[in-house]
């Protein structure tokens, strides 16, 4: 599989980080412009309804504080996603604690994902969201990283602490489940 486009992207990120470390603040703006929206999408797929801006901002602040720890053996975006994911888990844990709730099982997690209910004007897109929301958390994460970011299995595997082969299986199972849900619902395909 050709990696040329992705490698070019990775080189741009590394060059921007180096510029920032040398004192060029404009490089920070470019880094944020390149990844902020993807982080927001990623947060949404993790069921974050409120404070997406704060979460994404916290992610960047943490990342820039420890930018020396960034190793370019994975992409900057993957590293940022990992930080955001940790923040989401921390936040969910804190919320659960404050509500004095027991650990949510996967069934609850699926409900958690329905973050955009009522906000979606397009019925067909709402169906798509429901289809994705019914996936297991692991399937959903692999599927959305693959579909929304075009992330290679090798990077996804690092993010979910699994293997490339397992991620490929999760992706194709998720795709089958989404197709089945949409065909069961009789949603016309555009």
């Amino acid at each position, binding site marked *: 599989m*050709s990696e040329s*486009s992705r490698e070019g992207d990775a080189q741009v990120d590394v060059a921007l980080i180096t510029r920032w470390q*040398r004192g060029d603040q404009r490089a920070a703006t470019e880094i944020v412009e390149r990844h902020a929206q993807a982080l927001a999408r990623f947060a*949404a797929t993790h069921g974050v309804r409120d404070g997406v801006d704060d979460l*994404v901002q916290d992610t960047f602040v943490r990342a820039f504080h420890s930018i020396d720890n960034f190793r370019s053996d994975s992409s900057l975006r993957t590293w940022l996603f990992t930080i955001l994911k940790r923040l989401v888990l921390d936040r969910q844990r804190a919320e659960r604690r404050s509500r004095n709730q027991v650990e949510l099982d996967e069934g609850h997690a699926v409900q958690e994902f329905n973050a955009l209910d009522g906000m979606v004007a397009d019925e067909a*897109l*709402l169906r798509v969201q429901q289809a994705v929301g019914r996936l297991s958390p692991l399937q959903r994460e692999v599927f959305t990283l693959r579909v929304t970011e075009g992330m290679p299995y090798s990077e996804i595997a690092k993010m979910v602490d699994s293997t490339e082969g397992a991620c490929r299986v999760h992706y194709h199972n998720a*795709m089958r489940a989404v197709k089945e849900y949409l065909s069961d619902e009789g949603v016309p395909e555009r």
Partner: protein
Amino acid sequence: MTDCPNGLMRDLLPEYARGVLGADDAARVAEHLDACAMCRAELALLGRVQDGLALGVPRMNVAAIVGALPKPQPVVRVMPRRGVSRHVWQYAAAAGLVLAVGGGIVWRRAPETGAVRVADSSHVAAAAGAESTQSTASVQSEHGITFGGGLSDLSLNDLQALLGQMDSVRTLPSTDPESMTPVIMNEGGKTL
């Protein structure tokens, strides 16, 4: 929707849809899509999933995020530039040699501005002598600074008088050592 039996092509569809494939792979997928309705349908579904997952996601305020970021902290260390100091000492040693061999002659023959320069040289040589130069010539500049042999030959009174006279020399050496230059280094100590 039936799945295409070409697993490799199906695997590339998400990256094709995101436009992150290299040119060669993108061309192969495009060629396959021309001939495969199943992959065209799956590509359309991928587009819908992308739209569905992007819908309702707030637009990020880049300026606000950047404003909250820590400022870059390049490590700044003030250190003398080795090249400059070596240059100065080479000049001082050369000046000392000139004084030792024929400073007086040069001084007498030099035009008015040249005389100042010889006096400058003696100023530098006096400093250099403390380090390394063993000057044996007896030199008297226009400012009346006089010494023969090394500085070690001078008494404390002589030295104090010499220092007082040097203070009266208003013309500075033309190779006044450059000011300390900040050298920006990164965390690893590598000069940028």
